[in-house]
């Protein structure tokens, strides 16, 4: 990996992965690998997710009751665990999204003047 590439990829903030998982599951139940793929694909590979770290995240969300898990078969007829958003998780996603927007907005407002001065 070149150093430039590394600089453009962002380490995930604590808790953000949970938000991304919830967002991905909003589209429908799916299995772990597909969630990892979707996050990578949707962020155009900017977000660097070590795929393994998905699992503690999934378990954390199950424990909080925000997602549930059920057995099913995947597209190529293989056994798989399907993760599914619960109503509670749906509410949480809405809440977290609002919070995130707020935080992002606030940080953007603080940073904007610096950008305008043209500092990198």
């Amino acid at each position, binding site marked *: 990996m070149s150093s430039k590439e590394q600089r453009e990829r962002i380490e995930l903030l604590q*808790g953000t992965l949970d938000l991304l998982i919830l967002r991905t599951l909003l589209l429908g139940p799916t*299995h*772990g*690998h597909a969630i*990892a*793929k979707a996050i990578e694909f949707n962020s155009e590979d900017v977000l660097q997710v*070590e*795929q*393994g*770290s998905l*699992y*503690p995240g999934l*378990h*954390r969300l*199950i*424990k909080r009751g925000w997602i549930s*898990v059920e057995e099913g078969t995947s597209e190529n007829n*293989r*056994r*798989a*665990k399907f993760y599914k958003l619960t109503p509670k998780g749906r509410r949480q996603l809405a809440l977290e999204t609002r919070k995130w927007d707020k935080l992002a907005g606030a940080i953007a407002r603080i940073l904007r003047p610096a950008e305008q001065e043209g500092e990198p």
Partner: protein
Amino acid sequence: MRQRKRMLEELDQDIRDHIERETQDNVERGMSPEEARYAAMRKFGNVTRVKEETRVVWSSIWLEQIIEDIRFGLRMLRKNPGFTAVALLTLALGIGANTYIFSVVDALLFRPVEFTDPGRIVALWERLPANGVDRNELSPANFLDWKAQNHVFDHIAAQGWWNANLGGVDHPEHLHGFLVTPDYFAALEAQPMLGRTFRDEEGTPGKDRVAMLSYALWRDHFASDPSIAGKTVLLNGMDYTIAGVMGPNFNYPSGAQVWAALAFTPQQEASRRSHYLHGVAHLAAGVSRERAQAEMSGIASRLAGQYPQTNTGRDVNVMPLVESEVGQMRAPLIIMLGAVGLVLLIACANISNLLLARASSRQRETGIRSVLGATRGRLIRQWLVESMLLGLLGGGLGILFAYWCLQAQVIRIPPEFARMIPGWGKISINTPVLIFTSVVSLVTGLVFGFLPALVASRQNMNDTLKEGAPSAGSGWRRGVLRSVLIVSEVGLSLALLLTAGLMMKSFVRLERVPPGFNPDQVLTMSVALPEAKYTSDQQTANFYEQLIERVQNLPGVQSAATANMIPLSGMNGTSAIRIEGSPEPKPGQEPEANFRSVSNLYFRTMQMPILRGREFTSQDSAKGQPVVAVNEAFAARFWPGEDPVGKRMRFSGPLQDRPWRTVVAVVGNIRNQLDLPAPAEMYFPLRQQTESTMALVVRTSSDPRSLEESIRAQVVALDRDLPVFDVMTMEDLRSVSVTAQRIGGTLMAAFAGFALVLAAIGLFGVIAYAVSERTREIGIRMALGAKPREVFLLVVGQGMTLAFIGLLVGLPLALGMGRAVAGLLYGIGPNDFATFASVAAILAAIAFVACYIPARRAMHVDPMVALRYE
């Protein structure tokens, strides 16, 4: 939990599946299988770490956070030493007082007597519903009939008091003994520690010289001799075979030192009139107490039909033995526990108040935490963990405080009385008490931390992050909450103060009740003459008359006399009587009166007034005319409006063949119990009604205790094997007789005083805080021309308003508490207006003082400084 286990078990498979899929994708992208697998692994990351982190998700987040909360809480407590010290002191006293009272309740109510199966052991009493008596002693004949006729008990036993003089030792000693029927120990399911208990045949006259020793007696007087069983001991001048020794936990009846076999003489076996036995029984398997009660009542009514003269109206009362032992203690102890609980509640309100004030000063901390992602629940938990830490630390200190109370004997009862209170010796800070205290500490923390946690966590993060400005809305709400807390503190304090006031007043009234004689400078001590040595009435009477004469001649003695029962000692003897010329009474309705056998000069020694007639003199001898002196109550009951002197009465029942006695004197009433009116009483001359156990009463011209040794020496000079016991002054006896009221009153007063201090501190805190928050407003008012006096009144007015609302709110509670203690009061009703008025005035005065200091400060606010403030 099950979900956690399944999820973790399947994690390995999930990870393998995941890597499998990624490999498959990579192969489809054109990698070689080996390359594809390697890339998938790399992309997945460290499998071990992933598994570890997943396990952490399930296992310990909660615990870790709690530990983190505890660390943070401890740091916060250390950072605010002033707050922490005040809160801990309050809690230590509050929880400590609760621990102490609970340790007493635990010993006296929960385990006063320790039996293997207390549910099967019952006490048996005679019940006389017509007279409102439900615990009367049994007569031997009734007891034997109950024993023979019942089918509900597998053991039924009786026990009676026994004076046992321990001889054959350097200093003869009087022991607290009991005569018990042979199956007494079996009825109580008690096993001896050494030897055996009594055999059935030992319950017959001539075979009854066997004794059981208590553990303490065996240890202290027999050097813990392991082979004591079978040896003999000298009791009342006779040899008794020691059957065995009871274990250290067996203490029934409370304070017993020795038990001997009870054998009824044929004459006693037939007696239905002398009531002196206590019954205990063991329920047979499968028999409920209710069924036993029903059967015993049936037997009692059959006996009443059979022996109407003696048994009419006599029922049986089958009650759990534990209930019988602690019944009268329960109400006062529960009231004390309730009162001390209220004190803790006030302490909680106070600490809540302090925490609410702190919630304001910690707004920024809370705000930052919530912006950083702490949920409301997490914030509440942080606050609750902090308060529960305070509670636990306070509880720890409280245990030390309770321990100190025990060591310092905050509740002090003279040992000779404490001995007879079941469970008294077992009061300690033991495991159940520690569990109680831990639970109370945690609950206390929750109670006082709950409101502040809710308030502190409900912060608007935008407001709090802004520099300085406390938000007006939440500040106002907090002010209301703090006011509500103060109002409840004042209300609870009123209830406690009123209860304390009533109990103290009742105690003082009781102390002031004239006993009917002069208790100052009178020494009393008892002597029990063994019947083996003093075989005739004449011998016994001679002994006492010689003793009195010797004591009279001692320097410092004004006068001396004897009586078989002295007032205020709790001892009474009652007998059925007939009045000459009165109609034959209906069965079961024979009049009864107390009687005492007294020596000449008794009335003079006690300084009791002789209202009519004469003192007993040497002419009232065994051969002289039978005489009696009666008290005013007796005269008023049996000869209303007549002069009793010259009238005649005699015993009824077993002693009815004794001759008629002529009344020679009417004496003043004396109280046997300060809180009860004097009953009808008769006095017989010592020579005409001789008793072997007598109390010497000696009126002295100086400190009565200083004569104790010289009087003892006179007893020894007459009979060197004779122990003296129950040595005390009449003043001691009077004071001991009101011990319960004194303890109740002083404890209650201590609780109320503590509550008052807490309420004052709370009120002071709220007003001082309000003043500091309103500094600016006060400054403006003063700049606009308000006079300092007006500012002073404004502040005091705010505080006093709270106090008065508190008084109003507390009124119903106070009335309820008053009613709850009504049964413990003497000479005062629960709605005593004077007490109400004075405790309300005290509270108002304290409230004023608490407002005064902050109000003074408000008065001296400098408008310029105040306006520049903030």
